[in-house]
């Protein structure tokens, strides 16, 4: 049980629409339609959430930290470069693991409870491939 989830701090995270819009702040933003962007949330604590956001061209990695004024894009990558890759997964704590999104984006924290069968790799591949189909 996460005790921090009892408190209303949890409501300070941005909405999914705000998260989609935030990719326009990326220096690599290519003018894609953000309204159709797909979200893949992989990390969720009382202060931070992390997402991958896929448009037709790119995947953006974004951190929503309630102590920051706005969500922040940390990296972006052409979607083709992430299609079909095998994720490397490591243990960190009881609740948290580490994942490498390819060789350039390593050691990203993910919340194990969001992937009960440790299926982050297959869920990621489904996410990327379904985004490519759109």
């Amino acid at each position, binding site marked *: 049980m996460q005790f921090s989830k009892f408190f209303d701090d949890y409501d300070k995270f941005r909405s999914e629409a705000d998260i989609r819009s935030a990719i326009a702040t990326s220096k690599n933003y290519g003018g894609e339609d953000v309204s159709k962007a797909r979200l893949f949330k992989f990390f969720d604590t009382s202060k931070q959430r992390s997402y991958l956001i896929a448009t037709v061209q790119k995947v953006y990695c974004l951190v929503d930290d309630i102590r920051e004024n706005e969500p922040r894009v*940390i990296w972006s990558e052409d979607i083709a470069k992430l299609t079909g890759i095998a994720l490397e997964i490591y243990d960190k704590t009881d609740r948290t693991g580490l994942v490498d999104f390819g060789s350039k984006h390593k050691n990203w924290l993910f919340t194990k409870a969001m992937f009960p069968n440790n299926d982050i790799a297959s869920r990621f591949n489904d996410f990327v491939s379904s985004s490519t189909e759109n």
Partner: protein
Amino acid sequence: MENLLAGLEVMFFNLEIVNNTNNENPVLVFSVACAIIGAFAVVLDFIVYHARGASLLKLRHGWMTLFFLFGWSFGALVVGWIGQVVDMFLVSISAAILVGFSWPILLTKWLEERAEKEQQEEPEQELVEEV
């Protein structure tokens, strides 16, 4: 049951102290009264949360409100019973209000401490400049 209702009536509406001379089960009356007041505390906080957008008890209302409603009522019932066991309270409405309201606050403090400890132990993504 009749004893309980009669005792609650004496406490809530006559504002009198319930004891062995006017009720056969003053401990039960007090415990249930504490539970009722505990439920009121959560309901009032829920109303304040929706009216003012902030919870006085710093709770995240929603579906969890049901958990708080039953959990805190039960907690107040147990604390009320313990209070009677150790002879801490008179069976009065003011004592029931004290237990009913302070029990949720004690639980909140406990939850806050646990949450704070949990947050200190939480790993965080590094917020670096975009690459």
